[in-house]
């Protein structure tokens, strides 16, 4: 559903939202805050909170549940210049058949590809229930014109993308042009139509947690269905501190409006243990409601096999060699 409706239900352009400083969602008015006044973040405090998450001891049934949940939350990703139809098809097969040797293994949530590979992915995944996500908006730098970004998005959606992963204009953000960033996200949201929009903040380029919080607020208020940490092309990619700040932005928005926003940490989460740490953080920050692939995703290419290895150990009692788990 388009987020920006006036009282008679017509879509209204983003700049006029700005003039009125509020918009209507399901009949209620939501104030757009002044993003220069986004809540401040204390890095030391964030790290201390995270040390509590990572100290949680997740064992037995709770571990198995977390591992399987992790698999269902993965956006299996290939975003390389050398991607081909063959590569995308192989990855799609893997997405639906993570490890047929083990019983009760779910599929991943989605595959994530460039717009030109959406059609291939869509066809390969027919009937599996696995979504196709496409990056768009001049990914990964986002340095292009508004029109080209909108066209890029429309193309991906027309090709069959269920979800669009856009990048924000970090340059404009760092220059303080928050209106520009807001309007761009709102415009892409409109171009998405029914596709869900994930907004990549590229936190590795934002430098401070205060900036991460501010960018999260802008993305959420501008119409993001998900906020996402990283493209995977910049180091550092997803980290727990950055993700916690974003989860807190989601929580504050939910407390204020009752609207749920999804979260996708992407890049650098390659072990089951780390994934479980993220789930603990999600669980204790946003609660059980978010523990589902509708509201949380891992953008990852190598995480699945490590999780499978852990699940294999639960079945066989011993760790199997890496070669028991297929790489696609």
């Amino acid at each position, binding site marked *: 559903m388009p987020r920006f409706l006036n009282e008679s239900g017509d879509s209204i352009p983003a700049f006029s939202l700005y003039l009125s400083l509020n918009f209507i969602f399901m009949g209620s008015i939501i104030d757009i805050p002044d993003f220069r006044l986004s*809540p*401040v*973040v*204390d890095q*030391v*405090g*964030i790290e*201390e*909170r995270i040390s509590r998450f990572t*100290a*949680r*001891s*997740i*064992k*037995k*049934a*709770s*571990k198995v*549940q*977390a591992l*399987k*949940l992790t698999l*269902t939350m993965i956006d299996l990703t290939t975003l390389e210049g050398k991607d081909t139809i063959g590569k995308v098809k192989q990855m799609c097969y893997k997405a639906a058949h993570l490890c047929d040797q083990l019983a*009760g293994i*779910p*599929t991943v*949530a989605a595959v994530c590809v460039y717009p030109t590979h959406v059609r291939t992915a869509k066809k390969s995944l027919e009937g*599996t*229930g696995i*979504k196709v996500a496409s990056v768009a908006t001049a990914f990964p730098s986002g340095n292009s014109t508004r029109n080209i970004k909108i066209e890029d998005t429309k193309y991906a959606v027309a090709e069959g993308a269920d979800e669009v992963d856009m990048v924000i204009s970090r340059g404009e953000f760092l220059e303080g042009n928050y209106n520009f960033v807001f309007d761009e996200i709102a415009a892409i949201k409109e171009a998405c139509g029914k596709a869900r929009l994930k907004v990549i903040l590229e936190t590795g380029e934002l430098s401070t947690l205060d900036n991460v919080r501010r960018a999260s607020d802008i993305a959420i208020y501008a119409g993001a269905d998900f906020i996402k940490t990283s493209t995977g092309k910049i180091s550092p990619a997803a980290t727990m501190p950055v993700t916690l700040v974003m989860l*807190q932005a989601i*929580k504050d928005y939910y*407390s204020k409006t009752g609207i749920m926003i999804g979260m996708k940490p992407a890049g650098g989460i390659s072990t089951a243990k780390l994934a479980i740490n993220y*789930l603990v953080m999600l*669980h*204790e920050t946003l609660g*059980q409601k978010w*523990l*589902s*692939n*509708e509201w949380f995703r891992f953008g990852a290419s190598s995480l699945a096999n490590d999780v499978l290895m852990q699940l294999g150990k639960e079945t066989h009692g011993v760790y199997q060699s890496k070669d028991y788990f297929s790489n696609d």
Partner: protein
Amino acid sequence: MSKIKENNPEYFTDWKYAPSPESKDHIRLQNRYELFINGKFVKPNSKKYFDTINPATEEKIAEIAEANEKDVDLAVTAAKNAYDKVWKKMPGKERAKYIYRIARMIQEKARELAVIETMDGGKAIRESRDIDVPLAANHFFYYAGWADKLEYAFPNRKPQSLGVAGQIIPWNFPLLMAAWKIAPALATGNTVVLKPAETTSLTALKLAEIIQESGLPEGVVNIVTGFGNTGAAIVNHANVNKVAFTGSTDVGKIIQKAIAGTNKKLTLELGGKAANIVFEDAPLDQAVEGIINGIFFNQGHVCCAGSRLLVQEGVAEILIRKLKDRMETLIVGDPLDKNTDIGAINSKEQLSKINEYIKIGTNEGAEIFQPSCSLPKKGFFCKPTLFLNTSQSHRVVQEEIFGPVLAVQTFRTVEEAIEKANNIPFGLSAGIWTDKGSKIFNMTSKMRAGVVWANTYNKFDPTSPFGGYKESGFGREGGLHGLAAYLNF
């Protein structure tokens, strides 16, 4: 998405952390513990023993010897002899070797000490494992370093040891308080008679075993167990040159009266009722975390606990909502479980005192909030508790509860915050939460409190002095200041 969910509904049902209890197979405990006097474990002249129980299960763990006046006399005499004949004359660098050895042995036995600390006192294993035991070792390491450098710590002041230090410690940090007391006393060349609290003697006695094994000369450290009478015997013994007490303000006053007119040196570390002050420009989510750590750390059995929350009115509503949400995620239960956030209340007596205050607060008309968590059927447990809409005149604001109970007040201006924070007979600690550095420095210089934390709370380090103003006591422990308390100049 829905397809995965339909096929696998079990992944999406309530995710609960399975029990993850710390193993206690590896610990060695005796059924009965004797007094540690002159390097040996000896039977008490009183012939009496008392039980120490696990407050989480109410089961007996061991029985502990009760020292009477004669036992205390033996201990003080042993300490005096060790002081006169050995310890006073030993060069600082030789003393340091023993102190280092004790520190290393604490580290080697860290896991066993942590489990016993949790069993005997009720605190969550996460805390005894990550805070109490490592910090105890760090205190010994830190003061070992000073033992041969006292001349440099106090240049041109000719520091001299005092003699026998009588030390009485509380039940909230049994091993850590023993370390706070023993390490600086040994480093400065004094000998020790230490009495742990009657509900938590075990880790002090395990420390006695470590001290015995370390080869520390006999009599340098003596550990006598018992109740208030035992403590009184130490305080009143003529050959005790220094009394160091950590505990309640009431007992502190009795001790101060008892030693009036003697030349015993005294340090008292007593109660507190610290204000944790949150300004509207503070990082609120992190402030919430600091408030949680401030009051629920060690079930609130912390003399410097941030037991009063002062929040600026502009953010009071949002902060309290966040605080309540966070409290819902706290796990209260088996202290040995690695996921437990809040363990057992130390004793039945303390639990009834806390419950009494909860009743007082409710009767005073303060609005109570407790999360929906369930408590174990057996053992002494208390839900984390907020009292909202309190004023300075409420008893739950003025008096030390020493439990997981936080009184919340609001304020409008900086001046009002300072006034409220200081308007209390105690002055041990305070917390300031703001994004503005200048506000931090303004506030810290105006707090009548020994320790002021900014944008954090309950942080301890051996290098940092700790102690109070007003009825929170006098003298400092930790850091360079902690040495001075055991020296004459």
